[in-house]
């Protein structure tokens, strides 16, 4: 159940960038002793902003800055500081039209940006305020709506108006597309990776069967999954096929790979689809790093929360995938072949199911909702450690905070 929490509105109004005549479209934060904020603007430029944090040495995460001026019960000293201003640092010029999304890499000093000009740019911060263009990636055939980094690898995902998701990595010296995820029947509005700390884990996983354990191991090996949502009203889960599983006996149906670097290209499959609750384009989603719950929102004004669960009765399943027992009892070593999956029929997707566990209609009155994300609850009303709230923004110009009850 989702309930709007009116008492503690964490309205983080960042300064409108001085070079803009528009509100920044997307913001992203990272914390490196000082807070750094990147803003992508309608005027095709990105801005980098900095702010020294009170008590930054203590490693206070940027996400816990008290924007309510102490109302939320944060420490009162902070508001006396005059240096709390965000300082404009540098403009990144290069894109031809408005920047749709940008993201700092969690593992390296890289920034990814994307634009209506169909390109994805990767910038490297060489030293303070000196950003160099590392790559201009132009494989998409339409506006690039969103970029997101893998939590543990230098791997960038992008979502586009051309209905596709692309994954990008550095190959020797050049960045290039290492995977193309096709399937959506409309603009892909948002992509996001699963958190690195709980890959494929389900809410309650106290006792798992052998079969379920195999799924968890497979997921661990594959790494964080990817979520995408689209104009086609669907939300899809994608998973990488771990490399060594793709090795085939030589000469047996394997395509000649003279021009392809097999170590570079990755194969990703659609593992599952979330229950289709939305009736109009899905604009945004967020995958909680703490609970694994997914929240989504879009044009129909709904906010929906989903959970992944083990299918009941899955443990009784008699025929595990890819495991064959010969009649003579000889144990066969069919090494869990993943049969060049065109769909997700390989256990990982079939033993679990996604369930919609909460839904709010008219979340922002009759307006479209553009963004939703989980945030650690930090106000006085916090009910338990690590409680998360949902924050949403709508075309009504409001920012709303929602509490979630199971």
């Amino acid at each position, binding site marked *: 159940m989702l309930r709007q929490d009116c008492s503690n509105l964490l309205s983080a109004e960042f300064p409108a960038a001085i070079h803009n005549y528009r509100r920044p479209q997307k913001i992203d934060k990272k914390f490196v002793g000082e807070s750094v904020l990147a803003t992508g603007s*309608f005027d095709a430029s990105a801005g980098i902003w900095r702010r020294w944090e009170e008590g930054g040495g203590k490693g206070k995460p940027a996400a816990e800055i008290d924007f309510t001026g102490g109302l939320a019960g944060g420490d009162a000293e902070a508001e006396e500081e005059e240096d709390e201003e965000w300082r404009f640092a540098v403009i990144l010029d290069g894109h031809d*039209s*408005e920047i*749709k999304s940008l993201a700092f890499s969690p593992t390296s000093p890289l920034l990814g940006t994307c634009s*209506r000009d169909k390109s994805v740019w990767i910038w490297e911060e060489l030293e303070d305020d000196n950003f160099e263009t590392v790559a201009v990636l132009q494989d998409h055939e339409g*506006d690039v*709506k969103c970029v997101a980094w893998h939590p543990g690898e230098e791997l960038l995902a992008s979502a586009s*108006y051309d209905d596709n998701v692309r994954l990008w990595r550095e190959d020797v010296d050049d960045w290039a597309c290492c995977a193309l995820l096709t399937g959506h029947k*409309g*603009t892909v509005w948002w992509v996001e990776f699963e958190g690195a700390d709980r890959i494929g884990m389900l809410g309650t996983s106290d006792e798992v069967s052998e079969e379920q354990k195999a799924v968890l191991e497979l997921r661990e090996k594959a790494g964080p999954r990817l979520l995408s949502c689209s*104009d086609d009203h669907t939300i899809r889960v994608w998973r990488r096929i771990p490399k060594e599983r793709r090795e085939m006996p030589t000469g047996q149906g394997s395509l000649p790979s003279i021009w392809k670097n097999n170590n570079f290209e990755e194969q990703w499959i659609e593992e599952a689809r979330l229950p289709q609750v939305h*009736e*109009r*384009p899905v604009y945004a989603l967020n995958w909680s790093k703490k609970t694994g719950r997914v929240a989504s929102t879009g*044009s*129909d*004004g709904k906010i929906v929360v989903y959970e992944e669960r083990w299918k009941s009765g899955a443990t009784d399943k008699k025929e595990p995938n890819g495991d064959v027992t010969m009649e003579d009892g000889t144990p066969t070593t069919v090494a869990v072949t993943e049969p060049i999956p065109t769909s997700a029929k390989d256990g990982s997707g079939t033993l679990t199911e996604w369930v919609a566990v909460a839904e709010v*209609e*008219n979340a922002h*009155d*009759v*307006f*479209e909702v553009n963004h939703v994300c989980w945030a650690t609850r930090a106000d006085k009303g916090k009910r338990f450690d690590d409680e998360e709230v949902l924050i949403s923004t709508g*075309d009504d110009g409001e920012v709303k905070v929602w509490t979630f009850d199971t």
Partner: protein
Amino acid sequence: MDADKDNANPTIINPSDLPSRPPAYPSLADPFSSAEASSASSESDDEERREEIDEQEVYDLISTISDPEHPLSLGSLGVAKLDDISIQRPTSPRSRISTVTVLLTPTTSACSLTTVIGLGVKVRLLQALPPRFRVDVRIKEGTSNTADEVNKQLGDKERVAAAMENRNLINVVNTMLATCE
């Protein structure tokens, strides 16, 4: 000069043949109803009336838009047709969102101004209808060879917003909408 136009000789519909609402029943206040009663129910009446936006009303909003090429209205050119307007009411009792779908018929299948006409219709409806209406403007199937592309652009709120920042497009759309009341 007309040679520059995609369709120099469009078919024009006689104004008297255009769909319009039949004259309403005499709406003089019922002389027997008391003033108190009418004021008490006025609020719910308003609510009811808001829901009463129908296809004809949507048609009236867009049929008077001028074609960017000809000094004629979209209604008289048959670009906007009453039969190609539909309204989907809220899908659940709790939802308050209705959807208006308008299918446009370009005057020729190669009309390069199809996107602009669609944009004009979309902007007109976004401005004129209450925010609880979602507006889907599409090109009628089989009437334009760029329909898919145009439909996708008109369905993308960011694309529409960006288009309305373009001075040339704003001028064209404003000219088209100038003939609307």
